[in-house]
């Protein structure tokens, strides 16, 4: 699959008087796996919502899949339908996303809204339940699920419609280590080839697995846009954008030193680091 998934040029957005995005420019090609990095309040969630046409640019130009991302364009039912069919967003808080009475209804919601035939919906539900290992949860109400189960169901409820573009907002937030590892493995290997994946996160431990390119946001601006490994090795950039912090560390042998530290682990700069 080739073509441009998103093209943002000098995009701005403000919540009342507070500027959330300030002249953001970048393009994402179909099939790319991109991590949107940034500390809290850097604008990555706003950007993700804009990419899913839940809010629209106050200035600049934004296009998705070759069509303009504007309020006027999305008043057209056909354009709206075509976009929703191809782009899916997994929200950070599964309680927001899982609004149906049961897991089965949750999976059925997207396909039914897109007008799929009943048998096709049922087949897709069956396949997705098994693909995500959640068949035993199908009759459970979402509020009775654990955090990891909720996240799995939330992703399944979006993946079921097989969108070309998958947007994820903080996919590993509030997950226990096992659920986090399972999710990263799924995002790295379980989505199949050719799908565009854009994940907003500040979890540096996972981006090497789930992305090939990283866009770093800081105070609503693009601070860097480069291959993920290059970004991970640019400690000054990570420190400047509050993605790592200086950490005083003591080893068991009594040796002490300072080095950068991410949310979940150490960022080693070299043999002496």
């Amino acid at each position, binding site marked *: 699959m080739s073509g441009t998934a998103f093209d943002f040029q000098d995009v701005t957005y403000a919540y009342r008087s507070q500027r959330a995005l300030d002249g953001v420019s970048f393009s994402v090609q179909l099939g790319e796996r991109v991590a949107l990095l940034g500390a809290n309040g850097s604008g990555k969630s706003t950007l993700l*919502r804009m990419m*899913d046409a*839940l809010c629209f640019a106050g200035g600049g130009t934004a296009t998705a899949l070759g069509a303009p991302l504007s309020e006027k364009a999305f008043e057209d*039912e056909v354009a*709206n*339908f075509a976009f*929703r*069919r191809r782009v*899916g*967003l997994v*929200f950070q*808080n599964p*309680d*927001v*996303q*899982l*609004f*149906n*009475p*049961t897991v*089965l*209804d949750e999976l*059925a*919601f*997207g396909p*039914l*809204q*897109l007008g799929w035939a*009943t048998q096709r*919906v*049922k087949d897709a539900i069956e396949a997705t339940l098994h693909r995500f290992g959640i068949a035993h949860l199908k*009759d459970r*109400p*979402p*509020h*009775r699920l654990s955090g990891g189960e909720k996240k799995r169901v939330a992703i399944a*409820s*979006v993946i079921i*419609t097989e969108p070309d573009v998958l947007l994820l907002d903080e996919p590993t937030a509030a997950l226990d280590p096992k659920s986090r590892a399972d999710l990263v493995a799924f995002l790295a290997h379980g989505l199949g080839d050719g799908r565009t994946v854009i994940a907003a996160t500040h979890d540096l431990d996972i981006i090497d697995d789930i992305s090939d390119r990283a866009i770093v946001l800081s105070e609503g601006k693009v601070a860097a846009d480069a291959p993920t490994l290059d970004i991970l090795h640019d400690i000054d950039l990570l420190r400047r954008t509050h993605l790592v912090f200086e950490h005083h560390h003591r080893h068991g042998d009594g040796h002490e030193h300072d080095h950068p530290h991410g949310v979940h682990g150490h960022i080693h700069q070299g043999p002496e680091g």
Partner: protein
Amino acid sequence: MNEPAYGVCSCGGKKRRGLLESLVFGLIGVESHSLEAETTSVLPGLLQRFDPRIKVVALLALIIAAVSTQRLTVLALMFALATGLALLSKIRLIRLARQVWLGVFLFSGIIVLPAVFIVPGEAITHLPLIGWPITLQGLRSAAFVIGRAETAATLSLLLVLTTPWPHVLKALRSLGVPAAIVAILGMTYRYIFVLTQSALQMAEARQSRLMAPLDGPARRRLMLTMIGTLLTKTLALGTEVHAAMVARGYRGEVRLLDDFRTRPADWAFLLAALGIAATIIGARL
């Protein structure tokens, strides 16, 4: 009036619950009632086997019959039928008594109490000291109101206790209830737990920082603050949920998957219920 601190007994005997403690217990109670209903709805009982659509129509017909009957004996039989259905559906009577019968009796009893004295008729006895007459007709009127309320409430609760809530919603939609109403009912049920959890956490956070008993105005301020915060959270949650729905293709019309199956036993149950209702209403029993 002083508020006893959490875990501290100020009465020298039975422990009295403070405001926050009562709130916490109440919120936990909401969860536990829901869990109980989810448990009973999948028991291998009689009503659990029926198609939810059939159950909604059949129980509604029985409720209409119960509130329409002109005879106390028929009302008593309807109540007995509801109790029998509960037993056959493995619903414990003590639970019905606790959750429905006692509350309905007290509530409707208070409302109809004056009727016992003011409905004209044959006095069967008089209240001691004040001498008000208790009339037979007044007692009959009170018995009708209480009996109808008890029977209707029991039959309604049977629907909820023997049917998973999502199936009740789907049944309502299948029976032509507007999608918007069904969606609102579904989301109310879904998010009441998220908000209950939120309220519980707020109450516990307050309770954990409460150093001294609260006086009346402080307690009222505390409650108002909590209600305000919860309302703000509700609005924020509502906006987010709408965005999540739009993101998955929602355009104002909720579509549901309807996969109910109706078997001969369902039709037999429906016919029996409709037959009872038609007989009572048609023959003015």
